[in-house]
């Protein structure tokens, strides 16, 4: 904003105040999910004229959804799983035991940390039975979700 040629005649301090005020107003409106009439009333109380209020509200309405998505994504949550990779191997022998002949799965859960942006993936091995147990439990969770959305 400070570089905008249209605004170069205005005192930078005033510009900063305006920007901060506008940003605060927009963020509060977004946070509270205020509707247009509430915003209008608020701006009227601030003695803005009708034309300006209308302009503000139109712009706000245009960007409301994007604003809500942005606000909703701020915040802490446990590590979020984004994807899974797996590997199936057939074990033949190791130096302690020969002729093991066992299938085994290596599963990696790709995880995203909203805070630091690091990716501390979770990896573990499991037998076929264990993987079946895991999938069974995940399916239970999915079924519960479905039932919950139908309520």
């Amino acid at each position, binding site marked *: 904003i400070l570089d905008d040629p249209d605004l170069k005649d205005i005192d930078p301090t005033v510009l900063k105040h305006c920007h901060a005020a506008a940003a605060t107003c927009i963020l509060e409106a977004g946070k509270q999910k205020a509707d247009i009439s509430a915003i209008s009333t608020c701006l009227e109380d601030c003695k803005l004229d009708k034309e300006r209020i209308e302009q503000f509200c139109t712009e706000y309405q245009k960007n409301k959804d994007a604003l809500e998505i942005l606000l909703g994504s701020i915040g802490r949550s446990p*590590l*979020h799983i984004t994807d899974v990779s797996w590997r199936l191997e057939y074990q033949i022998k190791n130096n302690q035991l020969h002729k093991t*002949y066992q299938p085994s799965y290596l*599963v990696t859960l790709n995880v995203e940390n909203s805070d630091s942006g690091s990716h501390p993936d979770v990896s*573990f091995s*499991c037998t*076929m039975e264990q993987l079946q147990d895991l999938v069974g439990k*995940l399916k239970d969770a999915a079924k519960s979700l479905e039932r919950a959305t139908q309520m």
Partner: protein
Amino acid sequence: KLNVGVDTIQHGVEGLAYLLTESSKLMISEIDFQDSIHVLGFSDELNKSLLQLYLDNRKEIRSILGELAPRLPSYHSLEWRLDVQLASRSLRQQIKPAVTMKLHLNQNEDQTAQVLQTDPATLLHLIQQLEQALGEMKTNHCRRIVRNMK
């Protein structure tokens, strides 16, 4: 009680242990076992006892040896919970469903628990991917390999 020196007993025990672990590790057949101990020149009765000892304990020895192999953390169990986020400091009036899970893993005698979360879409994706993984063992390719490796 046996009227034999300590050293002899120690060597005897070590030798027996070595015989049994090596045989179990390699999973040798009865015939191979008998041929192997035959060269030691023991009596037939002793050879029979040794063979029986091998066959009786083979499974347990193998399972103990199996624990010594290098391992990644392994799956123990999973707990899950359905959550709906209704509001946060930055946004009120939300409806954000999520599945929160506690994954229990075993690593070298320790159990760790990790709390993870995912959204409904990713959950379905996870299920689909892992079901595909399970299905792999049943394909012709894998069946052929398992058959030929025995």
